[in-house]
């Protein structure tokens, strides 16, 4: 791990909202090493999703820089940008909203393999089966329509689709927030396994510190468009120093401990 895979500095963005200027990001900086998970945690409106949108080039930053794999991510255009998109993938909260509901699972996985020229046509059915297997799904699922499968299966398909282009970084924007409790734990375990096997780095965006604790090496806490605290995950959760960090820790529900049952 020499140097950072992603190095973000001074990221700023203002939007117009209801006729007023609204500062979504104000000088955000962080870095992610290869194979590492950084969690961006914060309340609604803290700016964490705006960071993701800028990195994915869905919105333009007003100021700041982002170097990914040695390239100036925010300046890339055309074929160079398409090439980087293969290495920088994304998974959203609700894959149903991101996918054509009538497309088959196989078609969704065929797209990235074809568009990025990863696998020749003849080899694609086998590659699709292998991708499904990697995310714990049966190869037969390739023939099913996206709307026919469960939410947890859909999120596995979204992860398989992201894996198809062999990325070095995946931006995960609230990837388990909409899932049932038992499915949520399975998906987090899958993400951890994939990282261990392939050394993929994650930018994990969430408001849920419980999920973050299960996956992140480091945590950056955002509020009001700024990073207010950043550090090793365990240290931030055990002794947060920012007001927002303390509020997030205090607000996270805990199961009552057996020793407290007497109260």
């Amino acid at each position, binding site marked *: 791990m020499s140097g950072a895979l992603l190095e973000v500095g001074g990221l700023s963005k203002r939007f117009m909202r209801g006729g007023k200027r609204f500062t979504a990001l104000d000088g955000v900086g962080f870095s992610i090493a290869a194979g590492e998970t950084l969690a961006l945690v914060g309340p609604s409106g803290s700016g964490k999703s705006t960071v993701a949108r800028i990195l994915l080039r869905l919105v333009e930053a007003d100021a700041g820089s982002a170097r990914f794999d040695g390239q100036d991510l925010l300046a890339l255009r055309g074929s160079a940008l398409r090439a980087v998109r293969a290495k920088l993938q994304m998974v959203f909260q609700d894959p149903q909203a991101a996918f054509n509901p009538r497309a088959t699972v196989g078609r969704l996985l065929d797209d990235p393999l074809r568009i990025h020229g990863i696998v020749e046509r003849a080899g694609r059915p086998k590659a699709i089966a292998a991708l499904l297997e990697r995310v714990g799904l049966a190869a037969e699922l390739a023939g099913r329509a996206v709307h026919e499968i469960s939410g947890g299966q859909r999120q596995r398909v979204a992860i398989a689709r992201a894996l198809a282009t062999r990325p070095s970084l995946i931006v995960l924007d609230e990837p388990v927030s909409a899932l049932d409790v038992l499915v949520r734990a399975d998906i987090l375990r899958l993400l951890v396994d994939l990282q261990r096997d392939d050394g993929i780095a994650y930018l994990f965006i969430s408001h849920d510190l419980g999920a973050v604790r299960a996956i992140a090496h480091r945590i950056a806490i955002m509020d009001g468009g700024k990073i207010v605290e950043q550090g090793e995950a365990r240290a931030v959760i055990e002794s947060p120093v920012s007001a927002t960090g303390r509020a997030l820790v*205090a607000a996270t529900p805990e199961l009552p401990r057996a020793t407290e049952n007497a109260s």
Partner: protein
Amino acid sequence: MALLSVRGLGVRYGNDVHALEGVDLDLDAGERLAIIGESGSGKSTLARAIAGLLPPAAKVEGSISWPELGRAAQNGRDIGFVFQDPASSLDPVMTVGDQVAEVAHVNLDMAWPAARRLAVELLDRVKLPEPQATAKAYPHQLSGGQKQRVAIAAAIVAGPRLLIADEATSALDTIVQAEIVSLIRGLADEDGMALLFVSHDIALAANLADTIAVFRHGRLVETGAAEPLIAAPASHYTRALLDAYLGLDA
């Protein structure tokens, strides 16, 4: 005498699938009951059945009675209902003050001027800033947490005996969720309201409720006092839910 008594409740939406089957449940006045389950567990169907909010096509068997009231409960007057998504339960083109006032106008036969004054009092009770001014705001001018406070004000304005919160905090971020839970708990305490708190979050429920009822595939898996149930669940399913819980304890 129980406030609410549910016996052999079953709900079906087509001919084949039971959304809910054979449910027996009691709720005392002032009791806080958490209904826990994943999607498809029937927990929202139960909440809606109790509030009389099932779609007309639903086929219902069994009974829902209100021994303490001695009559059927009426949603809006005897029951306040708070939904998951405040944006879809509030009318986008009506001021939030009027939406709260309307519930009092309809259910308490209150004249509009008095209902509007009561609405401002309620907006204050749910701790919205500047209730006079907020009453004149439209839903889109408020944050998600503020909208949910308005929905809670509308749910309790008629002084219901039971407040039902159906995943009322699930769409909110962690910090706002904790504030809304604490508001709901405080209001239920102050008014002696019973609470039916429907949630997928077993830790959130355990911290709020006296009693927990766990649902799966339309059936009641187990029910009991919150602390012993969390400490020693009888069912494997509840155990699995507890094991999968992602808290901050290592």
